[in-house]
Structure formats: C-alpha cells, structure tokens
C-alpha cells in the first residue's frame, strides 16, 4: 500500500465503500470510515499519506451526488475532513456554496452540515464567511448553527460570536439551549471569556427579554460556562469570574464570597477596567433585590472592593428609581446603610445620607 498511486487509492476506497472489499482492520467498535482512517494512519511515509489523500479526492470526484450514494458521501466527507488533501478545497467550497448536499441525510446527519465541518479544514475565504452568515439565518437549526460558529471561529472569533443572536433565536428546547451552552464552553476555553463578556454586556437585553432566557441561563450554569461558586479569583482569565458575576447579578443575589472574589480582581486588573464593571454588577444587583443589596451586599462592596462613596450614592439612587415609593425606600436604604455610612463613607447620619440620595434622585 505504501507505493499505491492516488488512482489506486481512489479505486480501493470506492471498492471498500461499496462493500466489495474489506479493510481488514480488527476492532470491535470501528465504523467504516474509522477503519479506513486506521489504514491511513498505518502508512509510514508522508508521501504515501499524501497519495492516500489525493485518492480520497479522486473517490469524492467520482461519486455522483445522487441519493443512492448518500452513505458513500458520508464516509468520504469524514475522510476528506481527516486527511484534508490540498486538492479537495475547490470541490468542497463549490459543493458548499451550491448547497449541493443539503438534501442528503445519512443516519440523521445532514451531509451539508458535515460538508461545512469539512470546509473548516480549509481556508475560510471571505466568500465562505459570507455564505455561512447568510445560510445560518436561512437554516437556523442548532446543530448547523453551532457548526457555523465553530468554522467561523477558526477565521475570527468575533465572526463566530456575531452569530449568537441567530442561535439564541433558534432555541426551542432545553437540549438546544444546552447545545449552544456547550459550544460556548468550548469557545471560552479556547478564546477566553473577554469576547463573550463584551458581546454580552451590549446584547444582554436580547437574551433576558426572550422566553429562552431562563432556559439558556440554566444551560450555561449546568455546563459551567457560568461558574456557580465564584469564590476565588481566576488569575488565568479574570473575565471568567466577571462574566459569571455579571450573568448571575440580574438573576440572584451574589453571595458574600462572590463579592470578595470579585474584589480580589483588583490585584490583577486596573481600576479603570474594573470600576465600570463593578458599577454595572451592583446596579444589576440593586434591580434584582434592592433590600438584599443595601443590607448585605453594599457594605461588602465598600469594604472588599473599596468602591468610592460617590459610587454608592449613584447606585443607591438608581435603586430608588426602580422603586415606586422613593421616600419610604430612601429611609430604608439610609437605615440599612448606617454602619457603612459611618465606617466607610464618613457621612455623619442616616438623615444626611437620605437627603443626599433624594437630591440625586431629583
């Protein structure tokens, strides 16, 4: 086999795929394409492996795109993705742009989705990016969408994240929410959390306003894209903790350990970066549970994160804007924050604080 030409490989592959000859690979649980890949891996030289790859292209070229060949095309796509021979790109791109394999399904796997994944092995040209962005909107089903996002990420992670609104809109079931969360687990593991966080703070309304919001939140937590126990600062990727706190902040009160963990971020990130983040998280917390915030969390923020008194006034005023009964609420805030006023903010009395808040609220 080491000396076989590309033509010989092409012929052999077509004979194996049509069941005419066996691969001779022994293992209990290997499917046909895995057996063939095992043969490829057994080749000793790069020259022989290249010829094998060329043989895959030849077999692909000589397999008409007809329903009767669905199974063969399925295996050939796997082999193309594995060997990605140089000459395969042109045909893979062409079939993709023409949507040629979209009608074909083998064992519930759409061959167009498989072709898209194979495309990811080749250069992602502008033409392909444009095609993926358009087709994702036309064929918004989750397996295809996450495949689109993975392929786009290999060209530019921002392109991948830009498809998130389409994917979010496609969520119909918990399983689809989980599939998207799983994609984000991989994405953040490879590219870090910053890109996702920055997208999230701009587009958050879109997520929370949809019915899928709760479903997606649950999927993010059960797949640990969002940390549940953020009690330690993540020195490797500070945005992981920030993203988690940010996502939780509009849904549940943060625990004291979580606030302290966030405060520790000051050791790794600059104040300019952190202050607006802290402010946003605090404001979200105020809206989620204002009483909890002023009674428990605000003093913690003050002590642990050394947030400036003026910031507290602003956030407290914000909390009042969302509460219909300003007057009564200001009393409550003032009373609850008395220890903080004295120890951290150096404001002499609850009444003085109340007056300042009321002035801010206008």
């Amino acid at each position, binding site marked *: 086999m080491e000396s076989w030409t590309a033509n010989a490989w092409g012929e052999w592959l077509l004979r194996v795929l049509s069941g005419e000859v066996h691969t001779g690979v022994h293992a209990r649980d290997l499917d046909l394409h895995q057996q063939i890949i095992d043969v490829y891996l057994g080749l000793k030289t790069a020259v022989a492996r290249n010829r094998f790859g060329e043989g895959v292209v030849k077999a692909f070229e000589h397999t008409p795109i007809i329903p009767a060949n669905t199974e063969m095309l399925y295996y050939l796509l796997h082999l193309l993705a594995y060997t990605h021979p140089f000459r395969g790109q042109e045909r893979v791109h062409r079939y993709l742009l023409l949507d040629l394999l979209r009608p074909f399904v083998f064992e519930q796997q759409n061959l167009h989705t498989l072709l898209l994944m194979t495309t990811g092995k080749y250069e992602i040209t502008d033409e392909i990016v444009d095609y993926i962005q358009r087709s994702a909107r036309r064929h918004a089903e989750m397996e295809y969408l996450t495949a689109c996002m993975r392929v786009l990420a290999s060209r530019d992670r921002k392109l991948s994240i830009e498809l998130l609104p389409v994917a979010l809109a496609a969520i119909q079931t918990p*399983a689809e929410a989980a599939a998207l969360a799983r994609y984000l687990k991989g994405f953040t593991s490879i590219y870090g959390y910053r890109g996702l966080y920055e997208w999230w703070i701009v587009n958050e309304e879109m997520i929370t306003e949809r019915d899928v919001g709760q479903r997606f939140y649950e999927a993010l937590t059960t797949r640990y894209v969002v940390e549940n126990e953020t009690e330690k600062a993540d020195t490797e990727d500070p945005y992981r903790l920030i993203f988690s706190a940010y996502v939780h902040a509009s849904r549940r009160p943060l625990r004291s350990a979580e606030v302290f963990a966030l405060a520790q971020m000051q050791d790794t990130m600059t104040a300019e970066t952190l202050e607006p983040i802290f402010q946003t998280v605090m404001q979200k917390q105020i809206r989620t549970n204002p009483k909890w915030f002023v009674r428990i969390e605000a003093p913690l923020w003050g002590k642990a994160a050394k947030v400036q008194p003026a910031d507290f006034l602003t956030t407290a005023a914000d909390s009042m804007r969302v509460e219909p009964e300003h007057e009564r609420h200001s009393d409550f805030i003032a009373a609850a924050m008395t220890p903080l006023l004295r120890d951290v903010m150096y404001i002499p009395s609850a009444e003085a604080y109340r007056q300042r808040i009321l002035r801010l609220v206008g």
Partner: protein
Amino acid sequence: MNPWDKVEEILLSHVVTIMSDAERGESWLNALKGTGENGVLFGVSLAIDILNETIDVADLARFFTEHNPGDPNHAIDLLDSSEEIAAIRDREPGVPYDHGGYVRVVELGGFVDKYLRRPLDSENVEWVRREYLSDPRANRLSEVQNAWSGRKGRVWVLPKREFNEAREAHATNLAAFLNDVLGLGYNRATYAEHPEFIVVYYPEDFEQRFTVKPRQPTCFDACWKPAGFYISYAHEDGWGRTHPCSGSELRHRERVHMKIEALTDDFRLEWLGKACEPKFDHARLTLAAEKRLVEAEVRLRHRG
C-alpha cells in the same frame, strides 16, 4: 473435536433438519466454513446462540432458505448485515434486574463520531475536548439528540457495578484494562498517539424510562466484517460475556441495546484515560470460542 465439526453438527440437527431445502442448508454450511477463521468464529457463536435459545432456529432456517449464500464472502456479508434474525430471549423471567445501572465505555473518537456527529480530525476532537472534557463537572449530555450507533445500530453496555469494581482494581491503567477485557482492541487513535476512553453513565431508571431494553447479545449484534473479539455465551442470567483481546480468562458481563437518539441530562460523561495497545491473541480467541461452545452444550444437557 474440531470446533467446526461441532458447529456443523448443531446446525444440521437444529436448523438444516427443519429446512425444506436441505441442500441450501448445506451450501450455507460450506460457505461459512469456506470463509476460514472468521466463518468458524461466527459459526461457533451461532451454534451457542442456538443452544442458548437466544435466536429462533425457525428464523434462521427461513433466512438460509430465502438467501443464497453464494461465495463465502457473500455469505458472511449477508449474515453480517442481516436484521432478520432477532434475538428472541430478552432477560429471563425470574432473573431480577441488577439495579446497579449500566455504563457504556466508548473510545473518544467513537464519542466524537457517534454521539456528536463530528469529523475525527484533530481540530474537531480538540473542540470536543474543550467543550466536554475540559471541565469534569460539565458532564451532562442532554444536548446529544441525534446519536448514531454505527452501522449495526447497537450499543454495548456493561453493569455499572462491575465497571466500578474494575475501576477500583485497575485505578492506574483502567483504560488499557477495559480496552483489553471488553475486547475493544483499539491499537491507535485518529487524534493522538494512544486511544482514550470515556464512560457514559446511564440513568438508574434507564430500563423504566426508555423503550430500548438491554438484552443478551447474539452473534447478529456483533460485526463480522471483519470479526472482532465477540463470542456468544450460554447462560440464563440474560448477560453475555466479553472476551479479552489478550485471551485472558477475565470476562465482563455485557448487554446490547438498540440506539437511543436523544440522551437526557442524567446521562453523564467521564474521561477515563489513555490506553496502550492491547496484546492480541487470536489463537486464544479460537480456543475460548471452542470452550464456550462446550459450556453451552453442558448447560443444554443440564437444562434438558
């Protein structure tokens, strides 16, 4: 006695004798014998299943009658792809289900390919590692909604209890141990130097909640193109037994079920480790097959 002689004797007395066309039955025997070791191993497992009454001889006789075996390769192809001879005996009534639950041990490439439906190239496998294996806590699997179970649509499972015992006893080389003892026989991986294995834990109430029921495997559940390390097993407990690639005496109980397309969050995943290439001993495989056939005859006599 040569194992084939016993196979022939059993097939003649149980199957060919009830066929209207005895000549066709004999041509099947000749075709099987003509495939060499593969055909003999298949024949032994077939004979064990007949003695164990896990397949219906009437189905087999009908199959032999309706299909011309042709040359030996064609014969094994027909048998390998046949869905006409269903397993007739599920768990024996009166054998209580061992409520330890099931697990499936699967090679990482198989997980990527069958559960996630993605190509096996290194980039895709790395994405899967990041998505599924980078965080052991993120082990739920409800996003798996279109699982494939390979050409034969079978999923092989073992009792969780036995898996846990193996894990305790082989903590440092669990993946290698399972690769051998379960007869998986992976000698290399498509994505790394050594094959890696993961385990899928089934929900405790799997048998109650899912329509697919694990049952004792028969030779028609195994792949014979080419043959792996499967040998049928005669026992009333409703479980098959694995045969290790190395031919050691260790056996694990095993069952098979048809594919489940949509998993739920109570299917859990865990990475087990890397395995080295097992030792393959095909001579012992043939000996073990012969031994199991003798055991099956003894059981039949006891039962009779």
